[in-house]
């Protein structure tokens, strides 16, 4: 890259994406209502990604316990009586509690579906059909409805019946764990719920594809998405190589067999990933290592030579020696100076303290009316005209019953009280994970 340093470009982008102006801009999915009947992570993330982009999300839970994720928190620690595991996939939602086993509850739910654009559920295949609130019933009420059915194995097919699934089931059956980790060592689960989160992302994407079709034709449709199948899609060259050569793929540690060099290295103060697959980047890396001769060594000079396993191993060992003597910031600085990729393996604290991520809203600090100061992972993609945003944090079960039932269904306070009396609707159980913080004394329900 020999062109000028475009300082003027970065001034322009800094103004265009200014974090302080996000709330002065419109939202891409304004006017789209998402009705969510989900638990754990796969379903809630599907709706959450749409909510970040401006859709109004109404999250329906079965009172009084609600979503199981309310009880999935690190080391069983309840922060302000809430599960830390529940917040990352539940932002800016309206929380209502409806008993869907009651006939009146089903009827309320159908009325909400009639006023919604997208419905997301992740019950086992066929459950909501049996309850009378599945796609077959809802499409009669609302033909424009986009119905996203998330699951482990899909709505049909041999594994779809009688088999429960979680994120890690998807990791296990898809082959993802089979190609991750170090040879000869026990297999390793991903440290986060990757099957769920990636699945939610893929399902939300399909919902927007369907929305585009609806924008053109007015038609809603059914989307069947299985998280295991989402992960199978991500295994890059695994399948095509098997088809052409019959060769199975196993774990090879952190190195990348297709891009050389690319690996994770230990430094004096932590770990850093380095990659330099293009020849010019590799030359830069050799200069940074003080070994410019490596760049012209016939074993390493071109990518096809570096990709040969014996050359790759020897080369990675040399980089390992070099990186081991440095601090991770020194390796990163060398990458920036010499044009190769070098990024530290971030810890939670690294992310929390990173000014760059804060300026970009990828680490997002905000003030929630109930939980006070929150710091979380923020929206990923930055849209210049319609930026994604977080408005408030997750709330206890049934927190917005009054607001939603009044605003969307026109129910009066006394009608809502009667529903509550008959246990058709409900709110939080008096237990950790479900209830508000101890300091809460009633009042505001934002």
């Amino acid at each position, binding site marked *: 890259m020999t062109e*000028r*340093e*475009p300082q003027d470009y970065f001034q322009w982008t800094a103004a265009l*994406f200014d974090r302080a102006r996000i709330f002065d801009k*419109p939202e*891409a999915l304004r006017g789209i209502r998402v009705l969510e009947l989900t638990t754990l992570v796969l379903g809630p993330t599907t709706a959450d990604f749409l909510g970040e982009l401006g859709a109004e999300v109404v999250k329906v839970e079965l009172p009084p316990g609600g979503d199981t994720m309310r*009880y999935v928190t690190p*080391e069983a*620690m309840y922060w302000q009586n809430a599960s830390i*595991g529940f917040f990352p996939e539940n932002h800016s939602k309206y929380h209502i509690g409806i008993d869907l086993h009651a006939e009146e509850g089903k009827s309320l739910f159908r009325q909400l579906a009639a006023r919604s654009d997208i419905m997301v559920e992740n019950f086992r295949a066929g459950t909501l059909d*049996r309850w009378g609130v*599945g796609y*077959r019933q809802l499409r009669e009420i609302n033909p424009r409805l986009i119905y996203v059915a998330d699951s482990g194995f899909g709505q*049909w097919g041999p594994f779809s019946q009688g088999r*429960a699934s979680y994120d890690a089931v998807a990791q*296990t*059956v898809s082959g993802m764990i089979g190609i*991750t*980790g170090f040879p000869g*060592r*026990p297999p*390793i*689960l991903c440290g986060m719920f990757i099957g769920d*989160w990636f699945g939610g992302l893929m399902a*939300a*994407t*399909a919902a927007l*594809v369907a929305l*585009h079709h609806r924008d053109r034709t007015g038609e809603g449709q059914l*989307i069947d998405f299985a998280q295991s*199948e989402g992960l*199978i899609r991500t295994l*890059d060259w695994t*399948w095509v*190589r*098997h*088809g052409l050569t019959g060769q*199975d793929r196993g774990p090879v*540690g952190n190195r990348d*067999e*297709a*891009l050389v060099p*690319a690996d994770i290295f*230990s430094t004096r103060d932590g*770990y850093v990933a380095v*990659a330099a697959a293009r020849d010019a980047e590799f030359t830069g890396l050799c200069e940074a290592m003080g070994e410019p001769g490596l760049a012209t060594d016939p074993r390493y000079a071109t990518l096809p030579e570096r990709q040969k396993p014996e050359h790759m191993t020897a080369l990675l060992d040399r980089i390992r020696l070099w990186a081991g003597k440095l601090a991770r910031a020194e390796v990163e600085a060398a990458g920036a100076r010499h044009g*190769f*990729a070098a*990024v530290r*393996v*971030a810890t*939670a604290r690294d*992310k929390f303290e990173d000014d760059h991520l804060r300026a*970009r809203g*990828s680490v997002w600090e905000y003030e929630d009316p109930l939980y006070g100061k929150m*710091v979380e*992972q923020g929206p*990923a993609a*930055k849209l210049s*005209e319609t930026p994604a945003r977080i408005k408030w944090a997750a709330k206890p079960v049934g927190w917005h019953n009054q607001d939603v039932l009044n605003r969307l269904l026109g129910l009066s306070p006394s009608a809502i009280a009667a529903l509550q009396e008959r246990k058709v609707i409900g709110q939080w159980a008096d237990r950790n994970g479900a209830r508000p913080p101890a300091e809460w004394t009633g009042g505001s329900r934002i």
Partner: protein
Amino acid sequence: MTDTAHGTSWPQFARDLTDPGRAHEKPEALDDLRVLDCSSGNFAALFASSILAEFGAEVIRVEPPAGDVARLFSPGGVKHRGTGLAYLVEARNKRHITLDLRSEQGRLLLARLARHVDIVIESELPGQMDAWGIGYRQLSVLNPRLIYLAVSTHGQFGPRAARAMPDYDITAQAMSGVPYVTGEAEGSGPAESSVPTRQGNWAAWYVGGAFGVLAALAALHWRVASGRGQLIDLTPGEAEMRLSDVGVLWYHAYQRIHERVGDLHIQVFPYTLVKTRDSYAFVAGFSDINFAGLTNIMERPDLKERFATTRDRILKARELHQELERWSADLTAEEILTRFQDYMTHKRGPGTVATARLNRPQDVLGEAHWWERGVLRKVDDPDYGELLLQAPPWKLSRTPPRIKWACRPVGADNELIYLKYLGLGKGDLQALRAAGAI
């Protein structure tokens, strides 16, 4: 599960509506869209344009005259008919043209093509396209409806934006923090493997690509009302970071850093891999009722008392893991699955329990489920022959995604695309070729 009102079981009904074998009979959701993907060696960008192409968009892949370096990214450097294996997977349904962004004439061609498209995807260093006069600032003047997706390591703005660093999956995974929490605990095993562990596939690139499409489709919806396009700044590292569970919030709440714990999960247990007679299996039963189910299957009611609460099970995970392996060591993964399914299907007790055999890719290929659902497919490609590919995973009842062809040789669609959009004939192309522009 038979619905009396309809007479058809739910699985049968759902299958009739979404069978991918009949996808070609149905319309495509995005066939009114044109996409220009001029990314370089970037599988986040390539996956993004793959998704759009699977749903019907006309995707024009722009490569330099010698082909994109992405065609070289292949395990062991293996090529099939001149192209690396990874590229064969993410070239589906795309038209392939050549155009040299490093030549003035090439950039002029790109600007002219950009007038005709809805979405541009690129992965140059931030500011590079702008410096060349073909960034969002310039192209949006020519085409105000343009949605422009820029993929990079550190983004288009922020303190580190000007760092000239190429984007790779491994560095994006590192940035996300996911490898830091994945793998054997520090000091618990051999030094070389008790380290932060990346996902073996290009996980961050795939997450990044999907996030890019999600944002582009939201921008597209907004464009219906506003008539205006926009710039989307996407980094695969931040994309995967968004998925990193409790990480930042747990630190905010308790100043706790999520450390690696191998297969002993900090939020749910049992939710783990156990050694079996033949291999490994995943088993889960972490809430009280589900753990009761698991101990019933294990015929170990005593465990229910020893590990009575969620908290006990998480804090004493290592001990409980040993108990699980004591039981699983004599069984095959298949036998465990049979016992779990029997328990669930016949409702022999409380709780929902889940298990799975640890699949190597070859094991996946041996299971009928994926073939029946069309998740894996053999595609007969006119240029590259028969290829085994992962198909688009979603089933949509009205506008299903599909694969039409797998890949095209470098520049194979030059004649068609340059004629269709710029009215350039054979003579014009010859001149451009001679000038090195295409």
